[in-house]
């Protein structure tokens, strides 16, 4: 019986104007998305490859100059691997730097050079840019905004419309339980929305996967599957909302008006208003503080150093030790400062993100981002990869120095470190990776929250429909 009702709904919808409009709209958006991705992505991948080989050359070049040079220069810039699924969620990638600077130098004197530290440059894409700003048309936009609107347009009259026409009374006069009618209608609406969406997704993926410039591997397809599942869940949320309001309201036009106002508040305004509130409530100190503190720390250290440095005779081991301690201590302090600033910033963003999570559209966009391998979570993963690599690199330097028995084992000064040539192939190189299992951990709560939303709305729709008088 459920299927019977669903089929009736489906055939009703397929002939309607809204079905045609939704199909055209979704197809157009998905096609644009695919074309834009094909235009931009190969270039991005190419640039990344060039940068990775640049990083490797940098290491090889410095390794051949000896251990001190390698330890002083550092591994150079470390780059973030662009995700192949960026078309699914742009994730504000342009607002996050695509590199970490593992070779940030600050000063040099006649005899000493500062050791490298790990710094995190910030991306300022729009400071030079005076263009009007818009949301990128990615899957996140298409699903979050357009598909949810379409879902409402398909369900606003599912019950109130039948009541207006009087056919609801007719249906219920048969010996069908109400929940069967509701489920049948839900399925019918679900399939009618899915058809244009699936069509558009297929066209999008067809265009992207058949092109030679972009390659999607098995894992990417798995991620796409999960993203599709999230989209389906999200659509169900709005279908349930539509049915709930439709069951409670007498006239279908009123039902649509209510739904639209709810939609505008929930989808269009809540994320940005919440974000503004969250962004304002957390404010970091001015940037002056940072450079001032950095300068002060360095100043204190160096005045202490100069007072001790000249007491020791030139060339003595004691003097080399003081030199080395100065350089390494300075690098340590400064890196600590950079790490602290980064952590403060991350904590702020995390607080802000927690607030915006009330809106379902933000949840979906977060989910899409984490499965597409873009966005803030991905950036944190990249930073973690960088930090792991940096530890590895430093351990390698220490181990290599330890292995040389002639070395004085004093870091920071050329004469204090191993003079033997370094095998460039043995030096660890940085390769950024995307890890699905890690993504899933961060996404699990959001997925649960979304499911909860759907269940609450569905049961609400059921209760409303059971109690409704025809």
């Amino acid at each position, binding site marked *: 019986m459920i299927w019977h009702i669903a089929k009736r709904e489906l055939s009703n919808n397929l002939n309607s*104007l*809204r079905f045609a*409009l939704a199909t055209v*709209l979704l197809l*157009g*958006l998905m096609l*644009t*998305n695919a*074309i834009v991705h094909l235009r931009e992505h190969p270039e991005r991948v190419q640039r990344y490859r060039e940068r990775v080989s640049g990083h490797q050359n940098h290491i090889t070049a410095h390794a051949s100059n000896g251990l001190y040079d390698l330890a002083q220069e550092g591994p150079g810039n470390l780059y973030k691997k662009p995700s192949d699924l960026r078309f699914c969620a742009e994730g*504000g990638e342009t*607002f*996050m730097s695509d590199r970490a600077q593992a070779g940030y130098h600050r000063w040099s004197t006649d005899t000493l050079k500062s050791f490298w530290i790990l710094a995190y440059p910030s991306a*300022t894409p*729009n*400071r*030079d*840019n*005076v*263009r*009007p*700003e*818009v*949301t*990128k*048309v990615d899957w996140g*936009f298409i699903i979050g*905004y*357009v598909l949810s*609107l379409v879902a409402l347009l398909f369900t606003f009259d599912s019950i109130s*419309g039948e009541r207006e026409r009087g056919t609801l009374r007719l249906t219920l006069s048969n010996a069908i339980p109400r929940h069967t009618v509701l489920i049948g209608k839900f399925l019918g609406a679900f399939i009618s929305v899915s058809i244009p969406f699936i069509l558009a997704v297929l066209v999008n993926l067809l265009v992207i996967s058949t092109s030679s410039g972009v390659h999607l591997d098995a894992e990417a397809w798995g991620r796409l599957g999960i993203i599709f599942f999230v989209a389906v869940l999200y659509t169900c949320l709005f279908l349930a909302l539509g049915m709930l309001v439709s069951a409670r309201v007498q006239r*279908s*036009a*009123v039902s*649509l*008006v209510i739904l*639209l*106002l709810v939609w*505008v*508040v929930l989808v269009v*305004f809540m*994320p*940005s*208003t919440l*974000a*503004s509130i969250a*962004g*304002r409530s*957390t*404010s*970091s*100190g*001015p*940037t002056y503080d940072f450079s001032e503190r950095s300068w002060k720390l360095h100043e204190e250290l160096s005045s202490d150093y100069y007072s001790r440095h000249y007491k020791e005779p030139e060339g003595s081991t004691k003097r080399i030790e003081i030199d080395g301690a100065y350089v390494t201590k300075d690098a340590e302090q400064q890196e600590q400062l950079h790490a602290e600033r980064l952590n403060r*910033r*991350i904590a*702020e*963003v995390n607080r*802000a993100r927690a607030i*915006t999570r009330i809106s379902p559209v933000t949840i979906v966009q977060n989910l899409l981002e984490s499965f597409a391998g873009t966005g*803030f979570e991905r950036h944190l993963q990249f930073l973690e990869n960088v930090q792991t690599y940096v530890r590895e690199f430093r351990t390698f330097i220490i181990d290599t120095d330890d292995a040389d028995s002639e070395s004085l084992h004093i870091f920071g000064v050329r004469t204090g470190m191993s003079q033997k040539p370094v095998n460039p192939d043995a030096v660890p190189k940085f390769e950024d990776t995307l890890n699905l299992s890690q993504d899933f951990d961060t996404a699990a709560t959001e997925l649960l929250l979304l499911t909860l939303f759907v269940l609450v709305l569905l049961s609400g729709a059921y209760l409303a429909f059971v109690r409704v008088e025809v």
Partner: protein
Amino acid sequence: MLMTLIRRELLDNLMTFRFAAAVFITLLLVVANTVVLLKDYEQRLTAYNTATQESHQELREQKVYSRYAMDLIVHRPPNPLSIFNLGLDKQVGNEIAVYHAFVPTVWDAVKHGANNPFLNLFTSIDIVLVFQGVLSLLALIFAYDALAGERERGTLRLVLTHPIQRGYILFAKYISAMLCLLVPLLISLLLSIILLTISTTISLSADDFLRIGGIVLTSLLYVSLFYLIGMCISALTRRTSTALMLCMFVWGVLVLVYPNLILTAVDIVPQPNTQISAYHQIKQMWEELNREKKQFLRNDTVLGPLSRDGESWGFRLKGSEYSFLRDADKPSTLLYFYQSGFYAGKIKAESEPHVSLVQNYYGFYNRETVNTVERTWLVRKPALEVIYVQPANLGRMLLRFSPVGLYDAATEAWAGTDLEGIQDFFSTVQRYRRAVVDYFYDEKIFESRQWFAADEGTADWDALPQFSFQRSDTGINAKRALPDMLLLLTMNVILFTVIVLIFIKSEV
């Protein structure tokens, strides 16, 4: 008769659920956002005040004129009307150095104050954005059943039995719906203005109220356009639910899809050739200056041997304490310059004979620098125009195909947060730089001892021309907003005519 019709429509509209919902939602969104925006503005203002004060103090700590580049910094105050339309006010830099070695532009400015670059991840919102989304939606919700609804209920037939022209009926419907839509618009604006006036940090001048008036007028045109679009759909369709659904698709396309789609699809990239060739030209001019400088030093029999590879570095004057470099090399914004200088606390007697020669050298070098900058500016200005301004204008042009783009552009112009409004500030800074350079010429500071030495009198910063910035006249704002407003008005008139034509011909 017209009055009766208007009264009937008005009563019809005022008593509906949608009217209550419209007022409630607009009020909620506008007030909530005003509070947030106000707080944000206050923060930016505090940051501006602190930064201005700090720059003022730091400049006064400098004893010689040649160091002024590091600390003669001017700041762009936040625009109080950015609460209505944020525009570029927060996006572009707000701190710029004034120096004779380059002409300051919006692309050379940096951002001061509290900053966490990650917070850019969150989209920002302003009152015009709320109106853009909500008022257009409300206008459509008010319009969808204007004709289709009466036709469904059969009341249209009844009204038309009276000897009234059909145009009058349309007009009455239009006027009453617009009156209803004005209520949420005006009440919410009034509340936000009250919030603004209560706040102590923000001070609105009479001109600002005129500008807000301009924004209200533009909003009215925008709302009316959407109402007419809805009415047009209503005149064309038989059933109200079809009309409403069509309205929603049109709204989705115009407000949500088109602006984002068009700018994603159309890739506006300036030719990189312009940038590269202009950059090289500018660099060559500076290299030429460098050659001239070296030539000058070679010809000088005393200073020449004192300079290291044609670079001044203090000319080994006894008493010179440190030398410094001020340079920039940013190919993306075509900024290139290079200046070196030194600081001497107390010049010893044995070097005294050289001082006048050094003064002479700086007189020559600074003059040549200013001339070189003038020449590079002739290259840089048009190139920046091609690289940044033209693509931005093209993008705005494309957005104008949707009423949303017109509305945004016009309100930005009123608020003064559009590109031209921002450029106003930077032209003021450019004029100020000119005034400072002229002052240095007039007072012979470029060739003075205080340029590098602090022993015979130090730099007198208070005598320097003071920087002040006034936002442009309301007249200029109006002039910039007018084309877009006229376009909106024309679209209104055309749509109304179309509706009248459709309605007159339609059968009831």
